[in-house]
């Protein structure tokens, strides 16, 4: 039927639910979307099952929005299924785009994460030391299974082919609406595009004018250590701000809230590795040429890997901590 509305699916993997919230936050615009499309799968809001998706014809869904990173075999199975059913796949939000906060799990592996979660957190009450098993055989011989928990967190495009990326933690509503409208009107950019302007956050930042002629950092401060001037560039105040190495389009929500950028939009198209690029930028503005002083200053940067790769570790060049080095 030619008058049939295009079908849309939403799915979540390793994520917090904030990206689902970002769809709800479309508010009255959501009604416009619902008018224009048929939502055929959305586990967080609608009661469709996996078998309903399986029953659909391959390629019959116009677009699937998938948020969250891939950490479990079940998530892999679901996104592979959706890839077959959808003409377009959009990685929705930082976790599916870059790995996101769950991607910080790549500093550990399955064993150390399970040990922490099921044995050593102060709030764990697990006297029998029970841990989840992939297979459990019950007394009556029945077998129960759980999805496999991977050692490594993956971005969506490391598991399936992705057509577009909607960046952000969570993506702002104007970018989501623009993406949906572009898809409905068939005005799509080249495949693989990140649906946000290809320039750095500093380009759009209101504090850009407060930047000194020559930016130099004599000390590194953490946000709680000083009273932050709400008008002045964070880097000029000694606070690490990922703006120079981060794509713009977020609406500077953090900056307006007087907090430095943490990099959730990922890098611009010209950059492979957001963390390495930021490291490069930061090192070049440390205000000393003296070896000992450089080392002292570097010592005050508490967690460079966790800070520079806050949202992008799985999508970085090295992707994770070396397995042999995890104790």
């Amino acid at each position, binding site marked *: 039927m030619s008058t049939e509305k295009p079908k849309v699916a939403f799915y979540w993997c390793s994520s917090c639910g904030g990206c689902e919230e970002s769809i709800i936050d479309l508010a009255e615009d959501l009604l416009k979307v619902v008018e224009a499309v048929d939502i055929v799968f959305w586990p967080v809001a609608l009661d469709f099952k996996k078998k309903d998706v399986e029953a659909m014809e391959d390629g019959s869904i116009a677009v699937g929005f998938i948020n969250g990173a*891939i950490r479990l*075999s079940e998530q*892999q199975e679901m996104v592979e299924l959706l890839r077959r059913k959808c003409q377009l796949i959009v990685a929705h939000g930082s976790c599916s785009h870059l790995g996101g906060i769950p991607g910080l799990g790549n*500093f550990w592996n399955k064993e150390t994460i399970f040990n922490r979660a099921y044995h050593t957190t102060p709030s764990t009450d697990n006297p029998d030391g029970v841990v989840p098993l992939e297979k459990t055989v019950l007394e009556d011989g029945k077998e129960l299974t759980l999805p496999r928990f*991977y*050692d*490594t967190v*993956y971005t969506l495009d*490391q*598991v399936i082919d992705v057509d577009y990326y909607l960046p952000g933690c969570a993506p702002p509503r104007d970018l989501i609406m623009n993406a949906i409208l572009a898809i409905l009107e068939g005005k799509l950019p080249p495949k693989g595009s990140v649906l946000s302007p290809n320039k750095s956050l500093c380009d759009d930042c209101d504090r850009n004018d407060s930047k000194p002629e020559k930016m130099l950092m004599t000390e590194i401060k953490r946000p709680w250590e000083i009273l932050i001037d709400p008008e002045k560039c964070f880097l000029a105040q000694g606070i690490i701000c990922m703006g120079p190495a981060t794509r713009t389009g977020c609406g500077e929500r953090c900056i307006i809230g007087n907090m430095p950028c943490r990099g959730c939009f990922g890098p611009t198209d010209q*950059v*492979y*590795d957001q*963390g*390495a*690029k930021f*490291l*490069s930028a*930061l*090192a*070049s503005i*440390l205000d000393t*040429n003296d*070896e000992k002083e*450089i*080392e002292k200053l*570097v010592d005050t*940067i508490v*967690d*460079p*890997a*966790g800070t*520079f790769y806050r949202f992008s570790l799985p999508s*970085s*060049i*090295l*992707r*994770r*901590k*070396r*397995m*042999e*080095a*995890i104790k």
Partner: protein
Amino acid sequence: MSSETFNPKLVGFLCTWCSYTGADLAGTARMTYAPNMRIIRVMCSGRVDPQFVLKAFKEGADGVLISGCHPGDCHYQEGNYNALRRHRLLTKLLEQLGIEKERFRLEWVSAAEGAKFQKVCDEFTEEIKQLGPLNWNGGVNEHREA
């Protein structure tokens, strides 16, 4: 792999003005040194993007060297100081990712120091032999095994 049979792969980014010329001198003077270094000539040690270093490790390097002009001697005034600052910060980041600091080295080698380049290559190769292969596994593809 024992240190007897393990032959480290090393990548060296050498600035064209000092260290590459120094390496050239070691060659023309027919000094012998460990052949493990794959040399990449760059205009300045400050040109070495941290992405290059990460990529080298990912593609199989067991150790990476950046070598430039001595402090104060940079052809571009300050490029080697940028290299120094990046080296110290990147070393810390690499350690967080489980790559030992011994695997990422910064050395100042002037155009006249062929002998120093020889020594750096021999020492670095020996050190990495003791440390063993890096075997970067970052792309672990457990989701592809089934």
